[in-house]
């Protein structure tokens, strides 16, 4: 009888709390979005699964001695996992389109207005009772507008670890929603004629330029923004390994096995922050709302900047590629290409949009560095 009671008390059914049930449903929702809707599945599958695991009563996944506890503290709290992902992303990134047309960097800069406007918006939300975002919190939330998952996780783990789960959910969800969020905004701020603009073919970029470029970027980060050096540094290391041509086996491992292993653990570790106390509150709603605002403002400012540049530049610039400045590589570039094709079936903008797209990655890493420098303790 006592044995039976012990057995019953050791079931999940006897120990469930409502919050855990809801968070498991959130985890299932993430899995659904990932698997059935193809929302950033590489991160959302392990993350959704991690959310389920961490909320199992008695299993202790995220308590001292639990698997997710080790994963979180060894990999995310230290910043190691996002940095390794960044190295892998660097090894996957081809800066050719950007080097061929460096003006595109201004589009990547403009789109970061999504971040800083959202920072202001997050502070403004404090006017509503129930919200009490500090500058640190607001900065971590605002980086969602950077449309760059590892950057958001890295910054949140430094500035507002208790919001990490919600921020990661928002960042990856909106990144997956780029094909739905961006087109209406792009069409709102451009007219048919602008969307039809064809751009000049990009010049060939030499190996020398591609090798020097990551070093030049790193040098600038060293000079002007050391707080961005971890992100920018690991990104440039990956890119240098890719382009230098003498360490192909390291580059290949960084973009395949290593990033895959780290992605599984990063997803699980972020998922372990999706506990009821941390997620089920009004702040999460605020974060989700602010994230949507951030993406929209970033897209808008990118498009408007491209329109301005089109006016000033002698080479025509299609304003649609400004939207790719939010990063979300390579989704945003594909969206620009698609919307361009709708207006002009002979207009292939993909390569042109890759420039602002990778510029957006640099831009949001720079923005993250500024936030770390100014509000990081």
């Amino acid at each position, binding site marked *: 009888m006592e044995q039976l009671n012990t057995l019953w008390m050791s079931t999940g059914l006897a120990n469930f709390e409502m919050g855990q049930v809801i968070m498991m449903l959130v985890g299932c929702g993430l899995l659904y979005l990932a698997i059935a809707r193809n929302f950033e599945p590489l991160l959302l599958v392990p993350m959704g699964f991690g959310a389920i695991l961490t909320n199992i009563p008695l299993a202790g996944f995220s308590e001292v001695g639990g698997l997710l506890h080790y994963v979180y503290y060894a990999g995310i709290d230290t910043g190691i996992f996002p940095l390794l992902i960044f190295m892998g992303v660097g090894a996957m990134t081809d800066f050719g389109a950007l080097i061929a047309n460096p003006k595109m960097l*201004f589009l990547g*800069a403009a789109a970061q207005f999504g971040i800083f406007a959202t920072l202001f918006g997050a502070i*403004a939300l404090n006017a509503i009772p129930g919200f009490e975002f500090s500058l640190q919190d607001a*900065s971590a939330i605002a980086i969602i507008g950077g449309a760059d998952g590892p950057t958001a996780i890295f910054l949140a783990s430094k500035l507002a670890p208790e919001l990490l789960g919600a921020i990661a959910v928002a960042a990856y969800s909106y990144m997956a929603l780029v094909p739905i969020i961006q087109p209406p905004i792009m069409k709102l701020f451009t007219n048919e004629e602008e969307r039809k603009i064809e751009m000049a073919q990009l010049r060939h970029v*030499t190996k020398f330029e591609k090798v020097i470029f990551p070093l030049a970027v790193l040098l600038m980060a060293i000079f002007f*923004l050391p707080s961005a050096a971890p992100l920018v540094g690991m990104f440039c290391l990956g890119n240098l390994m890719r382009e230098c041509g003498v360490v192909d086996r390291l580059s290949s491992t960084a973009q395949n096995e290593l990033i895959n292993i780290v992605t599984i653990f990063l997803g699980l570790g972020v998922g372990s922050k999706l506990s009821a106390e941390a997620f089920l509150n009004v702040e999460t709603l605020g974060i989700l709302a602010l994230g949507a605002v951030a993406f929209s403002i970033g897209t808008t400012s990118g498009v408007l900047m491209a329109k301005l540049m089109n006016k000033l530049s002698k080479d025509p610039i299609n304003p649609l590629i400004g939207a790719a400045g939010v990063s979300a590589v390579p989704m945003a570039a594909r969206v620009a290409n698609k919307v361009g094709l709708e207006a002009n079936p002979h207009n292939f903008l993909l390569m042109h949009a890759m420039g602002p797209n990778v510029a957006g990655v640099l831009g949001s890493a*720079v923005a993250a560095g500024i936030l770390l420098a100014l509000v990081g303790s």
Partner: protein
Amino acid sequence: MEALDQLFIEAGTLMLAGMVFVFAFLGLLVVIINAVLTPLASKFPDPVAQSVTRPTLKKPAPQQGVSPTVVAAISAAVSQYRQKHKE
């Protein structure tokens, strides 16, 4: 906690400083690419890839006397062969 007004001012300053810095940083990168990287690049051209051209010269040669039907047949055979020998 700081007063809301103070926070607003800080957030506004942050927004301004941040955007200025982002533009300055990436703008300087534009300057560097245009003024340093690209000019330098002309002095370090890519090595000419000679090995790539040779096979294209070689291949057409033995193809001359072969009728298109034979080539079609061969393509089919290759498909078949690959299908069978796929593991």
